[in-house]
């Protein structure tokens, strides 16, 4: 599956990553090489083989629906770039 600049542009947009035109063409070269290696997977017969999403085949553990954490908003917001009155500040979204 050949990779084109439009694929890199689409991925960059989905990943919210600002990529210049020069960088995009470098990434096309790098990612094409990597995906060429990855394409070796297509030669493996995986008929009837289930995907392995977790190395120990474990399933999500459930716990009782109880409050176990205290409110530590102030402490956790200390590492935020911009906060006010306990809220995270971002540029205006709705005019």
């Amino acid at each position, binding site marked *: 599956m050949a990779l084109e600049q439009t694929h890199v542009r689409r991925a960059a947009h989905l990943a919210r990553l600002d990529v210049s035109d020069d960088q995009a063409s470098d990434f096309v070269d790098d990612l094409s090489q990597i995906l060429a290696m*990855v394409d070796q997977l297509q030669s493996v017969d995986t008929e009837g083989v289930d995907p392995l999403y977790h*190395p120990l085949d474990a399933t999500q553990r459930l716990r009782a629906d109880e409050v176990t954490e205290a409110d530590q908003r102030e402490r956790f917001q200390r590492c935020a770039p911009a906060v006010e009155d306990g809220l995270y500040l971002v540029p205006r979204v709705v005019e």
Partner: protein
Amino acid sequence: MSDHTVTSLAAALKNGDASSRELTSDYLKRIERAEPTLNSFISVTAEQALAGADAADKARAEGRGGYLTGVPLALKDNFCTQGVKTTCGSKMLDNFIAPYSATLVEKLDAAGSISLGKTNMDEFAMGSSSESSFYGAIKNPWDLSAVPGGSSGGSAAAVAAGLVPAAMGTDTGGSIRQPAAFCGITGLKPTYGRVSRYGIIAYASSLDQAGPMARTAEDCAHLMTAIAGHDARDSTSADRAVPDYAGELDAPLAGLKIGLPQEYFGDGLDPEVESAVRDAVKVFEALGATVRDVSLPHTRYATSAYYVIAPAEASSNLSRFDGVRFGHRCDTPDDLLDLYQRSRAEGFGDEVKRRILIGTHTLSEGFFDAYYTKAQRVRRLIRQDFLDAYNEVDVLMGPTSPTPAFNLGAQKDPLSMYLQDIYTIAVNLAGIPAISVPAGLSNGRPVGLQILGSHFAEAQLLNVAHRFQQATDWHQQRPAFAKEIV
């Protein structure tokens, strides 16, 4: 100081032959002298360390304290450490003071060990040479023109140079074992789920695992006892008892069945590495083990599967770095989209961007089944290879890396760097444990023997590695650099 081990320091502290303050001060001096050359630390936390050392000495004087009380060590900079800058080697987190500690850090604190600082690493643990750190490349103490391996290169270099007796690392595709091999130390990647991932900055969540890096298997056993165990805060943490790792070190190896995967001795393996590994296997035969060839036929697809699965998980994990709640934020964003896009473009380095883009692409509509689902099917086949092999043998052995440490700047493109990990990646895909132990030198650069075990067989791996270290002295070799620091 460079000859000390965790075990020897613990004995000295217990017998009153040394205080933690003396040891901590001595190691801090070594760090100060070595760091302008090595660059193995991102942060040195001298003040906290000395305060911790005094508390440890007081605890010992009052008859409290355990095996590790007062023993200095270091943490890779992807373990969140409350009140301490935790960067993951990235500009993105250059301003991040962790508001809480990883479970591993809490467990080591409870055991009384003293962290001297946070070690340098490949950015977001993505790399095999430690050259992708925002804080600059690290040098290998055995040869300053060589890389220390990666991504836990700072932890490995610091231990090899005797700046700390041990350090903690993480391993997603070889990031404990390969730098351990390149720096001539011992590094254990435990079974997936054996050590809690809570508070470790995530790279690929179904592959990440933390473990000890030290001079000896005996040291790793004592450190594993402190860090292993179930943690309700990590949903994939294994809920099973932690064995007495140190208690099983001396078990005899007579009758041990060793398998040599033929795929680990193929094209691309450096002849001197191969001969060192084969010599190591003979040592085990002399200790009463039997050796046979085995096959792991899907090994050749491991790198391909890894470079779908790891970037896919990374692209998801790294979406949290959005310039809003923590980490780098760009100046004067036009709007919210601009804030996200420029904060991420400025905060992440090229290798991180590459993996985010691969992961986003392979997970996107139209490509998901062909890449992601296919890679997870192949992953099951890779794990089955190991399960089949462990029906025939107890442990597998081979090289940790196809070559000794390569030179700084030697891997010119991403793909040639990725292929450095051909012997380590399958272990993470299968979730099994593996340990790298020093087994020789090639032109003055260390060679690592990798020993692979079945799920939760860490005690056996440590036993096998310890018996090897009782019979050989490769782990006692020191680089000239370590001896020159006074």
